[in-house]
């Protein structure tokens, strides 16, 4: 058996990833180091940190960065809070229920992003289901502002990324031997103590990967904040797309994208160190 043959198996995938992911990304990195264009051109000849300087000196763009990261952190926290009880529930459910609950948890992923956002619009709008119901019941007089703000965006983001929190949690929880909990209980530990001292520590790897996944997905999402935020919620990702596609500010938009990626990377590393993540 020739040694070259196995390499033929990976060649198409490797070529695809190299030419259409790695090269284009390197190209964007190079673009961020080009000179911002003048007279309607996307960029000028020469290289420098001009585009980065532009980003850090314009408050309109700079202020969106902490806000984006903050939205990401809140979304992650909400997902953990909502997802943990679900994961515990599914891990201990009977076989038949497990399939159904699993399906419900995965359901946001089976419906396209436009349709999902459309559903939220019907629910959260000023004349939407929730506001109309509350009004009919006489609880409110004026409609609550549920979308076109941070609240709506976080809600919609948490909805779609919840599966990415529940699945890693579930796989780490399913590894726990129920006997450990029973032993602790028989030795006099309360349910809460069992959770705090046994269940939660064992599920830590799931918490870590779930949080990192949700955070990264949340700060880089574009369609949900654009549709639910109605352009009133300004995130760095939205500004990047706006700069690159609508304004032809190629070096500037590229630089902004890399600052976002770098800040996100730093937060993920800090989180991993704080929770003493063990890298595989």
């Amino acid at each position, binding site marked *: 058996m020739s040694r070259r043959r*196995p390499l033929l198996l*990976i060649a*198409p995938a*490797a070529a695809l990833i190299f030419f259409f992911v790695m090269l284009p990304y390197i190209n964007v990195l190079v673009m961020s180091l080009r000179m911002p264009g003048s007279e309607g051109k996307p960029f000028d000849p020469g290289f420098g940190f001009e585009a980065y300087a532009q980003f850090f000196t314009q408050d309109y763009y700079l202020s969106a960065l902490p806000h984006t990261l903050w939205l990401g952190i809140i979304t992650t926290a909400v997902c953990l809070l909502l997802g943990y009880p*679900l994961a515990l529930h599914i891990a201990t459910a009977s076989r038949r229920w497990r399939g159904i609950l699993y399906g419900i948890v995965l359901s946001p992923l089976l*419906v396209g992003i436009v349709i999902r956002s*459309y559903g939220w619009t019907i629910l959260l709008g000023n004349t939407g289901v929730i506001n109309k119901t509350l009004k009919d019941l006489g609880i409110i007089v004026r409609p609550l502002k549920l979308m076109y703000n941070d609240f709506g965006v976080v809600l919609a983001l948490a909805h779609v990324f919840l599966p990415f929190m529940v699945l890693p949690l579930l796989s780490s929880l399913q590894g726990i031997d129920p006997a450990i909990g029973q032993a602790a209980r028989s030795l006099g530990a309360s349910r809460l103590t069992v959770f705090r001292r046994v269940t939660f520590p064992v599920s830590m790897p799931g918490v870590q990967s779930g949080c990192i996944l949700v955070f990264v997905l949340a700060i880089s999402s574009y369609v949900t904040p654009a549709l639910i935020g109605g352009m009133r919620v300004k995130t760095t990702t939205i500004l*990047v797309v706006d700069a690159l596609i609508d304004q032809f500010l190629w070096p500037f938009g590229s630089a902004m994208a890399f600052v976002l990626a770098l800040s996100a990377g730093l937060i993920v590393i800090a989180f991993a160190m704080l929770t003493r993540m063990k890298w595989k």
Partner: protein
Amino acid sequence: MRLAEALLALFRVLVYIFLLAPIAVVVLASFNAGNFLTFPPQGLSLRWFVTFLQNDVFIDAIVYSAVLAALATAVSLVIGTMAALYYVRHAGKEAETVRVLLLLPLILPEILTAIALLFFFYQIGVGLEHRIALFTGHVLMTLPFVFLNVTTSLQGRDEACELAARSLGASRMTAFRRVTLPLIAPGLATGGVFAFIISFDTFGISFILKGTGSAPLPIQLYDYLRFNFTPEAAAVSTVSIIFTLAAVVVADRLFGRKG
């Protein structure tokens, strides 16, 4: 303690409702008899489904999306399965690198990948002509799902069966076709369904790379919803959801039990 447990159970039910609510609301709204999207519906009717079926724009978009998804899935299935075979059987020390590379399109932000591809295709002089960029983007988005699913089903089997077939005189191709392929069929089916759904629903890649002319369904729906608020969009969405569910159910019936 009883109270705490009851509260926790209530909380869980609320979260499950939260997960299903936006989808349920769209499906319910599509049967609305009124002219506008109101809730609860003003009587039940299938009129918006009829309107939608007479609207060439949406029919074209659904066909376009389905063809694009089918082609992208076919290419991903071939490339992804080959990569999975390499990863499980031959990668050795580079296994982790191979895995990360194959999952890159999933890990990197879709909208940024789309923009990177847009620049790239313009700089090599192809631009958005002939939908090559769009198609490449869809293959990239679907590839990780095929790779993940086929890898999982390959890891459960060892190479012994295929080697036995080879030692009995089967050619490499025959051994793969008659032995390995049937064994990994469930993984291929699940991966294929995932790939199809992802391609059918993906927005960022299509939004940036669609070029001129007809557009995939999510883009058409997005354009429509910017100016209209009739239940027709809900009818289109319901059909799209049924499409997706049908794909999942068919794959599950065909292969789910065996896997």
